[in-house]
Every structure is written in structure tokens, then in C-alpha cells.
């Protein structure tokens, strides 16, 4: 080998060696690296293992998850192999694992698995296994070729669903069958659901309602407020609301609804409205009625005149009234701010005299809660009230208390006064020396006071219990009196009577006994009490007075008899003279004879006038003159009076005139006869004392008061006048101006006196004004009531009847006086009447036995048998009912009654005018049957018993005087009342008519005037109701006619 080669190999070796060393070095390096890497790796490994362990644990836990899942979770490969199943899936898996396609579940599974593959996505199926239902969520995982199944046990869910379903159905039923409206609406307010009741109440069909806005159905007046209400609910997110408002049904009916509205606010802003509405129309009405009742109650309470306090069981005041508040001056109480009962009682107590008792009382009331007795309480200011308690149920149905506070101040005070006056009177009575005796119903003595005992001379102990009748009634005579007293007591009446009472020892004492019945609180008679006054001394006086009275009466009677006789004795011949001269005047006379006859007539008339004056004067003195009240015409009266004195004035150059005030009522009520008398007196005086000039009679109304006119009659002359000094005496009896006057002018001087007496009898005024030498005016004023033409005497009402019918009549004239007999006969025969005469009653009866007559003229005063007796016999024994006219010279009170009672039809006083006689005969014979009347009446077929005095007699208890008084009042007032009723009718014054009818009614009832009892009531009603005047007029006329009849009958019966 060459050096060259050796070098090469040397270099190569060097390089190799270096390379090897390098490689070793690198190896070493690498080993180190490896070693470290290994370490690292180990550590990493350790960590990793730890992590893995941890992880595994976690995974284990997690893997337990499905195992612990109560729901089935399992995994099946696409080809049907069970890869995993948790415990809960046992039930299901058993059937579907391993492609067991024979079971139901297996089939189901197969189908599902197929579906999964087809669908290539998740889906769910429902499976029921052993009464449990599962929802299987099937999730195919295509990558891994298996299906994960997640099951949920929905058994309970399905059950709950079923229950919910049923619940739902039930609710639906409720909604459908509800008796209230149930509806739903959307947030715009349009109906989305309405139940049947909604359609029923509103009257619209479901179709008609759905989609409509609820506002459409609300009553127009309420739409705005209801709309705002719901809008507010909406805006305030208010869940529930309640409101009442009216809606209008399809038929237009207004129906009130109470509506609950629920609003459900969804998160998306939608609002669902559900409402229930109830028909409260009726409730509202009844509520209104209750409210009205409550208001009525409140009004009643506030006006109630007792205090009312109602408290509940807790002491709170439920109700009270103004009376209570005012009574106790409680001001802080008003309906909204109620005090408690304790506060009120405190205020009340403050005003009482004995507050503690009040406190106790009310506390006890509350405690016992039972009705208690009324208790009286006295207040410091003198007022008194009764407290009444009643337990009640309050409006809440609890125990409440009701107190009444009654104002009994007046009663209490009255009681005190009564007590005081009782004591006073007891004292007075004791001091009056009145014996008081108290007996029971059997007249046994209960009590007698000291004075009575002293009067009768017994010790009180010895008479208690004894029979009063046995002790005190002296004799059989007195028994009647005591029996009557007893019967009055038994009737419950008190009365005063006189009786003799037997003292201890037998002495009889005259006493006035005032007896009264005693009643218990039930009104039962338990006895009587008598006040006894010893009138022994009074009796003495009485006896003396009685004797004096007898004497006086005797003398008065004597006077009357004398007057009567005088009247008769004088008038009879006067009658003859006047009658004869009258007849004579109708015959053919020579001039001289006429003159003489005139003188006779004048003289006899004068004489008659004087006689009448004297008789009148005497009558008036004796108090026997009565003044009539009948209707008459003032103008006629005046004219007649002027006519009567015309002849007196004719001889002198005196102008006679008269003036009648047109304001004077056409008919007035008064005594025309007497007024005429006065006028004649004054006129004749005026003419007498007036040589020449004029005499004027003036009648005028000076005052009008209601139905009464004050009429002033003036007789004015231009005569000689009366001396001033003598004027005062002018009316005195028997005086003329002086004796010279009587001598010159004649006259008895009685005229003016009588006129004065007559005027005063008629409650008028008479006076004179005169100037000597100039003239005189005599005035008299009378208050006369305005009358009706029906007040006029009928013979003036009717026209003078013709006397043609008299011809052929047969009349029996019974008269003892030859002259009068002659007179009567002549008058009658002058008219063609056939006359028979009889000298006395006996003869008359004899005549009547054999002959028949149409009429009898019967004198009264006759020998053997007078007119009264004869008439009685004729009527009662002979049963002859032909009319009998009495001819009487007397005209005393009571005569008319006796004539009627005897059976006479009419009477005529002598001297009579022939005309009057004839007219009476006419009138009487116009009647088909003889009727006992005072004066001719409007023809009636029969007289009914139009009144009865039974009631009056009952009231009067046999007191005739009382009856008389009653009757006279009735007679006096009735015509006036009737007249006023007419006036009211004339003037259309309903109130007047009513007032009069009303005043008449009690009398009509009392007098039992059946015919008009109802009519007067009709008049009352008709006038009160302003009915038709014609109807009223008829009724008033009817009442008038009947009452006129009654009054006239009464006048006859009682001579009033």
C-alpha cells in the first residue's frame, strides 16, 4: 500500500474514530434525553392514571345516571340487539329485546324501529304496559347504528289528563247550565264566548252576540261610565273588578247586571277577559223597596214623639232619633259619628236627679235582656220621662237593646195637680160638712166619714157592713126614691136627689144626696158613693117659699083667670057689636044711617082697641104675652099700617106717606101682628098730635149682619112735638105728656108703653126725638132674620080661594051666646052654607046623633058641657071625625094644646074677621080627611110620625123641664138654621150650606126625624164636595118642609 493510500486510510480512520466518538457522544446525549423523557413520561403517566381514575369514577357516576333514572332508558342496535338498558326499562325491554316480535311490545317496537330508520329523525310513541303508560322518545344515532330510547312514565299524566278532562267537562256543564251570564271577550271588548244564559237573558242568539262589542248592549246613559271603568281596569292591570250597570235586551227591556270581570294579562301584551254577570233587576227593586222602607222608618223615627235608642250587644248605638237627642241635649251624635251607649248614658245621667238608679236600671236591662216594667225618672230641670225597655234582635241578628223614652212631664204634673186638688177638695169636702157614704153593689156600707156618722147618729164601726137601705130609709114612701137612685147607679149614672133619711132614733132628716157610681179599672160597677147634705134648715125656707109661691101663683093664676074672663066677657059683646055693624054695613042704608053706623063702627073699633091695649098690657105685665116668629112682608106691613090709619089722616090736612128701603129682605121673620100694632100706635099718635103737615113712615136697614137685618122703623110727624122735659116719661105707663093731653087728645096712655114693651119683648130698641112745636120722630129698631117665602103663613102664600065651594055645606054652630050664634049663622048663610045651631055641648052631641054635618064650629065656654069636653066625646065616643073649629075668646098659652088634644082641627079667636072664618072653613074642608093641625098646611094625605121624643126622654130621664128646654131650643133654632141654609143655597155658598146642615144633623138625629136623617147627611156630603146646586136645592127643600112640619107640631105639643 502506498503512502498515499496509508494517508487516506489514516484520514479515514481518524474520521471514523471521530465519527464514532461523536456518535457515542450523541448516544450519550440521547440516552440522557431518553432517561429524562422517561421520567417525564412516568410522571405524566402517573398523572394520567390519576386523571383516568378520576375520570373513570366520574364516568361511573355518570353512567349510573341512566340506571338511577326512574324512567326507562335503553339502547338497541339497528338490528335489534339490546346494547344497554337501565333497571327501569325492565318492563318494556322484556318484550322488545332480542327482536321478540311476538309480543305486543315487540310488534310495537319493530314498527317503531322501522319508523326510526325510515324517518331518520327523533320521534315519540306511546306504549302501555301492565297498566302503565310510557311515552318513548326514540332517537336513532345513525353514526353508531343504534337507537337511544328515553321513556317517560306518563301514567299519572294520562290519569291527570283524564281527571282534567272530566273536570273540564264538568266546568263546561256548569258554564252551560249556569244561571248567570258567563262570557269571554278579547281585549277589544268583543265577545268570544257566551253561555246559554247570556243568550237567554239578552234575547240575542249566540251568533248575534259573538264578535259584537259588549258596549252595544249597555244602556246608553251608562255607556260612558262603564266604558271608562273597564278601560281603567285595563290600564291599571287590575285582575278583577266588580260593577253593576243596566243592559238592554233584544226586546228593549232594561236589565240590571252585577258583573265580575277578570282580566288575564299575557306576557305578549294580549288580554283575555272573562266575566260572570248576574241579573239583579229584582234585587235592585227589592233593595230600593228596602231603602224606601228604611227611609220611611227613619222619617217615622225622626218624627216620633218619644226618644228611641237601639244598641247592639257591644254597646254601639245602631239607631236613635232626634227626639232623644234634643231631649237630652246630645249634640255630638250624628248618623255617621255614633257614640257608644255608655257615653250616651253618661250624658243622660248628668241630667237626672237620681243617676245611680238609672245606671242600675239600664245595666240590669242589658244583663237580663228581658222586657222590663216602665220606670219613671225625674230630671233636674223638672222634666219627667218613662223609660221602657225591650230586648230585640239587631239587624245583624244579635242581641240588642231597645229603649223608649216617653215624655210624661205633663201627665206627671197633671197627676200632681190632681193629687193636690184631690187633697184640696177632700179638705174642702171635709170642711163643708158633707157626709160621705160608700156602699157596695148590694148597698152594704163600705165606708162612712165622720160627718156622715154625726149626721145619722151612729158610730162608724157600728154601721160598716150593714145594709144602708135597712138603716136609713125611713118609710115605704121613700123607697121609690132610693130605688130610682139605685137604678141610676146601676145604669152608671150619677144624680142628685132629695130624700128623708132616718137617723139613729127614728128622726127623719131631709137631705140632698149626690150619688155617683164607683167603677173599678175595668169599668165594672163596684158600688156607689153618696155625698149627703143636711137641708133641714133649707127645707124650712123651702116650705115658706113654697107657700109664698103658691100664693103668688094663685094670685097670678087669679089674674090670668080674671084676664081670661075679662077677655071673654068683654070680647063677646064687642064681637057682636063689631060683627053686627059689619053686617049692617052690607045692607041698604040711608045716608044718615051710614053715618051713624060709621060712628058705631069707629067707636066700637076704638073700644076694642082700648080693650086690647089693656089686655095686652096686663098680659105683658103677667108675662103671658108671646112673640111669634113667622115670615112676613115688610112692605105689605107698612102699607097695611098706612092703610089702616088713612081714615084718621083723611079728616085732617095731613099728608100720609111711607118709604121702604129696597135693601130690606123681601121676607123677614118676626111677629107682624105686634109690629103692626106698634106701627098703628105710633102712626095714630103721630096723626093725633099733628094738626097739619105730614106723617111719614120710613123703614130702612141700618145694619146687616149675616142673615140678620136691623130694621129701623121711623114715624115722623110735623106735629106739636114733645116737651124736652117730658120725653123721658113718654113711655111710662099711663102717662101722657100731661093730663091735659089726655083730656084733649084722648087715649088711655097705654099705647106707647105697650109699644115699648112689645119692642123690648122682640129684643129691640125704641126711642123718640122731638122738638116742641116742630115735630116728632119715633124710632124703633128690630133685629129680624131674613126669611124665605116659605116662611110665610100659608094662607098668605096661597091666593085667596074662592068661596064658591062653600055652597051647600052643612055646618053645626055650637055657641051659647045668642048674639054670637046669630053672627056666625048670618055670616055662613050669607055664603049659602046650611047652618044648624046648638046651645052647648050636650045639644051638639044630640044633633050629631041624628044629623050629619060637614063641619062644626065649637065655642069653648059653654054651660052644661063646654067645647073641649064635647069635642072629646065626639071624637072618642062617637068616633066622628068631621072637622071641628074652636071659637075662642081666650087666647092663653096652653089653649092651643088643649084644643088639639081634645081633637079639634083649628081655632079662631074672637072677635074674628068673617073672611078668616070662611077661609078656615075652606081650608079645612079642602082636606080629604080631618087632620089635627095648628094652621092649614100644604095638603098632605097622611101625617106620619116624623119625629120621636124617645131619645130626648131617655136623655132627660123623665125631666120634663129638660125636655121642654130642648124642644124650645130646637124650635127656636131650627127655622133659623134652615133659613140660613137657604140663603147659602141662594148665594151658592157651599160652606154655609154645609155648616147649617152640620148643625141641624144632631138635632135631627136626636129627634129621630127619620125621613131626613139620611138627606141631611147627603146635604153635608154634597156641599162638601161642591156638588150640583139643583140637587142640593131639592134636598134642602125636603129638609125644610119636614122641619117646618116638625117645628109646627112641636109648637103645638109643647106650646113653645
Amino acid at each position, binding site marked *: 500500500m502506498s503512502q498515499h493510500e496509508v494517508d487516506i486510510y489514516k484520514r479515514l480512520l481518524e*474520521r471514523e474514530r471521530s465519527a464514532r466518538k461523536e456518535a457515542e457522544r450523541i448516544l450519550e446525549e440521547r440516552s440522557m434525553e431518553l432517561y429524562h423523557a422517561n421520567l417525564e413520561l412516568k410522571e405524566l403517566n402517573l398523572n394520567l392514571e390519576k386523571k383516568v381514575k378520576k375520570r373513570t369514577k366520574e364516568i361511573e357516576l355518570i353512567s349510573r345516571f341512566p340506571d338511577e333514572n326512574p324512567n326507562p332508558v335503553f339502547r338497541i342496535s339497528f338490528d335489534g340487539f339490546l346494547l344497554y338498558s337501565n333497571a327501569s326499562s325492565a318492563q318494556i325491554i322484556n318484550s322488545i329485546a332480542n327482536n321478540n316480535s311476538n309480543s305486543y311490545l315487540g310488534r310495537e317496537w319493530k314498527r317503531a324501529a322501522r319508523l326510526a330508520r325510515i324517518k331518520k329523525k327523533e320521534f315519540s310513541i306511546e306504549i302501555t304496559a301492565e297498566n302503565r303508560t310510557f311515552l318513548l322518545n326514540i332517537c336513532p344515532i345513525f353514526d353508531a347504528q343504534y337507537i337511544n330510547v328515553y321513556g317517560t312514565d306518563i301514567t299519572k299524566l294520562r290519569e291527570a289528563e283524564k281527571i282534567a278532562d272530566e273536570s273540564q267537562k264538568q266546568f263546561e256543564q256548569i258554564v252551560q247550565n249556569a244561571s248567570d251570564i258567563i262570557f269571554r271577550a278579547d281585549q277589544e271588548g268583543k265577545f268570544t264566548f257566551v253561555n246559554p244564559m247570556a243568550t237567554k237573558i239578552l234575547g240575542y242568539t249566540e251568533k248575534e252576540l259573538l264578535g259584537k262589542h259588549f258596549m252595544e248592549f249597555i244602556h246608553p246613559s251608562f255607556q260612558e261610565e262603564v266604558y271608562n271603568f273597564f278601560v281603567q281596569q285595563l290600564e291599571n292591570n287590575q285582575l278583577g273588578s266588580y260593577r253593576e250597570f243596566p243592559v238592554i235586551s233584544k226586546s228593549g227591556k232594561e236589565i240590571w247586571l252585577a258583573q265580575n270581570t277578570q282580566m288575564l294579562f299575557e306576557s305578549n301584551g294580549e288580554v283575555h277577559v272573562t266575566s260572570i254577570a248576574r241579573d239583579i233587576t229584582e234585587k235592585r227593586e227589592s233593595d230600593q223597596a228596602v231603602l224606601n222602607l228604611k227611609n220611611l222608618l227613619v222619617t217615622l223615627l225622626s218624627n216620633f214623639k218619644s226618644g228611641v235608642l237601639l244598641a247592639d250587644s257591644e254597646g254601639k248605638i245602631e239607631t236613635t232619633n232626634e227626639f232623644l237627642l234634643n231631649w237630652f241635649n246630645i249634640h255630638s251624635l250624628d248618623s255617621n259619628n255614633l257614640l257608644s251607649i255608655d257615653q250616651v248614658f253618661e250624658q243622660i245621667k248628668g241630667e237626672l236627679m237620681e243617676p245611680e238608679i238609672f245606671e242600675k236600671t239600664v245595666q240590669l236591662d242589658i244583663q237580663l235582656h228581658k222586657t222590663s216594667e216602665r220606670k219613671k225618672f225625674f230630671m233636674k230641670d223638672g222634666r219627667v220621662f218613662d223609660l221602657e225597655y225591650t230586648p230585640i234582635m239587631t239587624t245583624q241578628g244579635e242581641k240588642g237593646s231597645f229603649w223608649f223614652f216617653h215624655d210624661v212631664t205633663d201627665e206627671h204634673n197633671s197627676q200632681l195637680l190632681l193629687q193636690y186638688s184631690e187633697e184640696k177638695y177632700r179638705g174642702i169636702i171635709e170642711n163643708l160638712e158633707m157626709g160621705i157614704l160608700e156602699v157596695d153593689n148590694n148597698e152594704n156600707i163600705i165606708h162612712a166619714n165622720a160627718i156622715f156618722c154625726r149626721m145619722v147618729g151612729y158610730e162608724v164601726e157600728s154601721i160598716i157592713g150593714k145594709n144602708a137601705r135597712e138603716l136609713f130609709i125611713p118609710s115605704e114612701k121613700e123607697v121609690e126614691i132610693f130605688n130610682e137612685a139605685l137604678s141610676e147607679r146601676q145604669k152608671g149614672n150619677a144624680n142628685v136627689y132629695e130624700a128623708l133619711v132616718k137617723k139613729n132614733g127614728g128622726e127623719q132628716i131631709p137631705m140632698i144626696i149626690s150619688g155617683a157610681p164607683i167603677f173599678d179599672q175595668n169599668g165594672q160597677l163596684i158600688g156607689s158613693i153618696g155625698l149627703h147634705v143636711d137641708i133641714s134648715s133649707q127645707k124650712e125656707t123651702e116650705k115658706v117659699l113654697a107657700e109664698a109661691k103658691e100664693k103668688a101663683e094663685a094670685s097670678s093664676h087669679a089674674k090670668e083667670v080674671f084676664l081670661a074672663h075679662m077677655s071673654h066677657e068683654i070680647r063677646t059683646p064687642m064681637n057682636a057689636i063689631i060683627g053686627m055693624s059689619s053686617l049692617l054695613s052690607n045692607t041698604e042704608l040711608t045716608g044718615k044711617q051710614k053715618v051713624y053706623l060709621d060712628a058705631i063702627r069707629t067707636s066700637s073699633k076704638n073700644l076694642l082697641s082700648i080693650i086690647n091695649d089693656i089686655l095686652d098690657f096686663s098680659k105683658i105685665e103677667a108675662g103671658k104675652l108671646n112673640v111669634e116668629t113667622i115670615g112676613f112682608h115688610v112692605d105689605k106691613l107698612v102699607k097695611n099700617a098706612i092703610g089702616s090709619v088713612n081714615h084718621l089722616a083723611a079728616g085732617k090736612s095731613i099728608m100720609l106717606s111711607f118709604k121702604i128701603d129696597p135693601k130690606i129682605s123681601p121676607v123677614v121673620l118676626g111677629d107682624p101682628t105686634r109690629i103692626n100694632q106698634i106701627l098703628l100706635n105710633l102712626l095714630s099718635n103721630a096723626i093725633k098730635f099733628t094738626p097739619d103737615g105730614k106723617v111719614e113712615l120710613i123703614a130702612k136697614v141700618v145694619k146687616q149682619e149675616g142673615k140678620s137685618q136691623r130694621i129701623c122703623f121711623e114715624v115722623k110727624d110735623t106735629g106739636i112735638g114733645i116737651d124736652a122735659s117730658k120725653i123721658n116719661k113718654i113711655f111710662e105707663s099711663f102717662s101722657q105728656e100731661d093730663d091735659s093731653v089726655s083730656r084733649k087728645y084722648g087715649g088711655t096712655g097705654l099705647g106707647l108703653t105697650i109699644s115699648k114693651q112689645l119692642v123690648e119683648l122682640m129684643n129691640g130698641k125704641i126711642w123718640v126725638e122731638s122738638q116742641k112745636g116742630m115735630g116728632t120722630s119715633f124710632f124703633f129698631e128690630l133685629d129680624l132674620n131674613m126669611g124665605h117665602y116659605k116662611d110665610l103663613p100659608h094662607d098668605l102664600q096661597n091666593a085667596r080661594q074662592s068661596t064658591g065651594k062653600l055652597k051647600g055645606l052643612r055646618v053645626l054652630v055650637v055657641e051659647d051666646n045668642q048674639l054670637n050664634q046669630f053672627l056666625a049663622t048670618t055670616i055662613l048663610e050669607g055664603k049659602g052654607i046650611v047652618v044648624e045651631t046648638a046651645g052647648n055641648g050636650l045639644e051638639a052631641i044630640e044633633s050629631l046623633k041624628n044629623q050629619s054635618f060637614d063641619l062644626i064650629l065649637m065655642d069653648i065656654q059653654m054651660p052644661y058641657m063646654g067645647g073641649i069636653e064635647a069635642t072629646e066625646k065626639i071624637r072618642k065616643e062617637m068616633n066622628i071625625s068631621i072637622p071641628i073649629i074652636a071659637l075662642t075668646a081666650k087666647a092663653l098659652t096652653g089653649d092651643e094644646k088643649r084644643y088639639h088634644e081634645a081633637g079639634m082641627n083649628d081655632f079662631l079667636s074672637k072677635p074674628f074677621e068673617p073672611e078668616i072664618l070662611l077661609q078656615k072653613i075652606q081650608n079645612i074642608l079642602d082636606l080629604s080627611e080631618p087632620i089635627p093641625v095648628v094652621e092649614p098646611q100644604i095638603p098632605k094625605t097622611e101625617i106620619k110620625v116624623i119625629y120621636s121624643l124617645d131619645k130626648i126622654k131617655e136623655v132627660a130621664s123623665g125631666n120634663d123641664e129638660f125636655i121642654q128646654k130642648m124642644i124650645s131650643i130646637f124650635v127656636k133654632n131650627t127655622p133659623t138654621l134652615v133659613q140660613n141654609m137657604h140663603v147659602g143655597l141662594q148665594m151658592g155658598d157651599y160652606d154655609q150650606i154645609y155648616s147649617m146642615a152640620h148643625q141641624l144633623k144632631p138635632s135631627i138625629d136626636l129627634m129621630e126625624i127619620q125621613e131626613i136623617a139620611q138627606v141631611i147627611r147627603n146635604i153635608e156630603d154634597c156641599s162638601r164636595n161642591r156638588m150640583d146646586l139643583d140637587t142640593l136645592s131639592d134636598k134642602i127643600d125636603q129638609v125644610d118642609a119636614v122641619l117646618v112640619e116638625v117645628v109646627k107640631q112641636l109648637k103645638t105639643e109643647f106650646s113653645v
Partner: protein
Amino acid sequence: MKGIVFTELMEMVESQFGIEMVDRIIQPQELVSKGVFTSVGTYPFSDLVSILGHLSQATGAGIPELEKAFGQYLAGRFSKLYLPFFQRVNSVFELLNEVDSYIHIEVKKLYPDAELPQFDTIKMDSAHIEMIYRSQRKMFPFAEGLIDASATYYQQKVKIKVLEWNHDGAEVRFLVESLG
């Protein structure tokens, strides 16, 4: 560059040209490694360039020629040294496909500092593969030789066609066709 490249090159030169050639081509004064190579070491590319330069001078063959020949030689060596890599696939195309995605990754695991070219497959079918070679060493001919010799392991014959030659050989798009 990994030492194995140098050691194999030395072996190849020694076996083909003898030790003298080896000695001649190694000029220690030009080499960082001073010519000392172990397969497990790592030496700069400039050393390879020097050696190849001298080799080219000495043999008169061009460097690409030399690179290619070396590639072919190395492929054979690889198929022995790293047989599993070859056994993994059934064809050279598959192998090529795996160069970047598997082989080089495994290499880098063991020798993180290895400088390796990038092979991106553009398209591939049973008879063709089109790839792009990228490397800063610009040794495409070397790659060519590797590829060519690798085919032989799979009893395949291939033809390599350069489609694009960019950046002075730093990026080459080429197509490998299977010939049978």
C-alpha cells in the same frame, strides 16, 4: 441535514469509487464538520454542497446527476432501514402521498431538527400523481432519484415530468406517471 445523508453518501462513494474518492471529496478545511460524520449527528447543508461539489469535480458528473444517483441509492437504503414505512402502503403513489403526511412527521418526532422538503399532493389517481416539491436546499433531482428508486420496491416503473420549475428549483410542480 441529518448525519445519515452524509454517511450514506460516503458509503455510496466508497462503494462506487473507493476510499480514495471519499478522501478526495472531503476537504476538512471547507467543512464545518471537518468531515466527521455519524448517522445520528446533524451537520450544515453547506458541507453537503462542498462534498457534492468536489464529487462533481472529481467525477465530472453534474451535480443534478449526482443528486439523482444518490437519491436512487438512498431509496434502496431506506427500504431496508425503514421497511415499515414501505410496508404501510401498496404503491409508490401511496407512499408519495404519505411522505409529508406521515413519514416526515415520524421523522420529525425523532429528529425535530431535521430539515426536510415539503411534498404537497395536488391530484392523484391509480396511475398518476401530481405534486409540488418545496425546499430551500433545492435538491429536486435528489427527490427524483428517491422517487424513481422507491417505485422499484413496488415493482413499478415511473416516469417523472417536471411541470413547473420555480424559484430556482425551490418549488417544483411535477407529475409522476406509472408505467406498468
